[in-house]
């Protein structure tokens, strides 16, 4: 599904990613961990196609197609979804209106007509129940005055609505209390299938108790310095990141 080869990226001429190699197959869950400033969020943004980030070397393939030249919305149309670490406020635009616009934009890109209102309502009801979202929540302005938990739940709600091929969850666990974490993780697990893939970016092992990864990668200084199974996450939880840094610097 996703193949990243020797990816170098910089922002404002500062190199952040320095040669990432990663392959994610359909049906897999990958966790990317690492200390602050290691380039985790940058990697997510680069895959999603944020313009400020310049790919200086290497390639990103989605289903064998080089997506480097594609605009962010075109990548989204191809099934890439990013759950933002800090979801953005859009005052005056309701959660419902936003997701409706997004769904119809994706349908249009596929040559489909707008989703009929009846189907849209049904889908919204179904997915909001899955994430235990209150109906009143749906009429609120997007992310405006939302608590940390509400923001993250709304991200996963959008993911559930859009049914992406590749979902990247950037620090989805930050700002969540344990109940919200369980709901969000449940939602992600229910959406998981053999046809899609998930990349979980996280600082802590906590989320991985709920969304169990097939592979864990450690990102440090813009490179993946260690990969392993889910037990690697436990090891990191116990020992912290210092031993990794030492290994790399040795």
């Amino acid at each position, binding site marked *: 599904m996703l193949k990243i080869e020797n990816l170098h990226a910089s922002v404002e001429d500062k190199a952040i990613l320095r040669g990432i190699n990663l392959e994610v197959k359909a049906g897999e869950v990958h966790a990317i961990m690492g200390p602050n400033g290691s380039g985790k969020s940058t990697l997510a943004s680069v895959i999603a196609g944020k313009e400020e980030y310049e790919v200086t070397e290497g390639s990103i393939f989605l289903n064998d197609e080089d997506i480097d030249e594609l605009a962010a919305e075109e990548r989204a149309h191809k099934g890439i979804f990013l759950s933002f670490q800090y979801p953005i406020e859009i*005052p005056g635009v309701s959660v419902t209106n*936003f997701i409706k616009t997004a769904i119809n934009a*994706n349908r249009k890109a596929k040559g489909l007509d707008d989703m009929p209102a009846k189907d849209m309502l049904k889908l919204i009801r179904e997915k909001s129940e899955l994430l235990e979202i209150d109906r009143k929540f749906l009429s609120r302005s997007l992310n405006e005055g939302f608590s940390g938990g509400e923001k993250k739940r709304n991200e996963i709600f959008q993911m559930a609505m859009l049914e992406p091929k590749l979902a990247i969850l950037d620090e989805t666990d930050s700002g969540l209390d344990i109940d919200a974490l369980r709901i969000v993780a449940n939602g992600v697990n229910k959406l998981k299938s053999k046809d899609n893939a998930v990349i979980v970016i996280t600082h802590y092992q906590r989320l991985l108790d709920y969304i169990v990864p097939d592979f864990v990668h450690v990102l440090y200084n813009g490179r993946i310095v260690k990969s392993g199974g889910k037990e690697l996450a436990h090891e990191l939880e116990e020992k912290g990141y210092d031993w990794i840094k030492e290994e790399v610097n040795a």
Partner: protein
Amino acid sequence: MSNKYTEDDLREELKTKEYEYGFYTDIASDTFPIGLNEDIVRAISLKKEEPEWMTEWRLEAFRAWEKMIEPEWANVHYAKPDFQAISYYSAPNSKPKYDSLDEVDPELLATFAKLGISIDEQKKLSNVAMDVVVDSVSVATTFKKTLGEKGIIFCSISEALREHPELVRKYIGTVVPQKDNFYAALNSAVFSDGSFCYIPKGVRCPMELSTYFRINQAGTGQFERTLVIADEGSYVSYLEGCTAPSRDENQLHAAVVELIAMDDAEIKYSTVQNWYPGNAEGKGGVFNFVTKRGLCEKNAKISWTQVETGSAVTWKYPSCVLKGDNSVGEFYSIAVTNNYQQADTGTKMIHLGKNTKSTIISKGISAGKSQNSYRGLVKISPNADNARNFSQCDSLLMGNECGAHTFPYIEVKNKTAKIEHEATTSKIGEDQIFYCNQRGIDTEKAIALIVNGFSKEVLNKLPMEFAVEAQKLLEISLEGSVG
């Protein structure tokens, strides 16, 4: 033959005089020669078969206008029009310009299509000859019948001057006097036509006035005069303008709108203004210098809602004179400027009565190299005990070359007044755009979404059907504003 000077003699003499001055043949033709003087004013009045008092009223306005100076205080810059280079009368319903839609500017047709305007309407709007549409004729007839049964008068101001001169005479100029300002004086002297509306006591107008006449509204002239009178306890919602782009050749538009809400009456006045804004380099476009004012008697309410997206230069302050106790004035505005457009718009809320209340919500959106100013006055007079005002002025900027300005004036002469003013300025952020992009929404659509969200409080005040069109209009107005 008696020596008594009869009316017939007068008429005869007038005719001869007109002829002497060289206007006789011109009156017969559809367009007057350029220039403005007393004879032109008289000729307009004569052409429209107006009563003598009306001719005098116009002349009084003209004489005042001659002594006035074009205002320069607004935050707009333009080459002043040469008032002697304009023709002040063009017969309405002149012949169609084109025989078929194929001859019309394709860009204009594309915009019509985006707005979802029917083929027949497109023809009418772009001045193409068309057959009578059975449907719209029958709708219009039913419409007039329903209004007639309720005693509502809704017609052109020319017709009103013929059919109901006493009403026009009683109210015209009572809210916006002839000498009110330079453009109002000009309008009073030369206005060509406009609308008149009278709602009798206690009648609730059963429909939004003028929705069904959208097509007919499109061709209105450059000096429009509107007079709306809501008698005691009545209600009317009036829609003005057209979402369709108007490629008017007239550069100067100076309209006057007067609203009178008597005791316990309510008037809702909604405008969508989409005159030609000029091209992307700032060439051409309409100068829109409008005076709109409403008078509220006891317990009355007037709401102005406007969506201003067109014109090269806009100078417009729909205002409320809250004369009666407990009266309410509201102003909801969205003003969009793009490319080289300039808008200086806002409102005046004049609190005279006790317990009067006003609300101002202004949303300015600037893009390109445009300048967008909000200018508002809240005035509390000494007798206006317990007056309240809430003002909110929000500006949204797109790009780094446009400007947003807020000029709030507050004059309070009564200690019991309570006034609140809030103002914000924000910029559409790259993060917001990326967030939308990531969800599959392209940048153009993302901007439309953000702008609509920003304008929501005002869009919500528009009648449903109008609101949908206005939303589309915002999108189209801002197209190409982000590289």
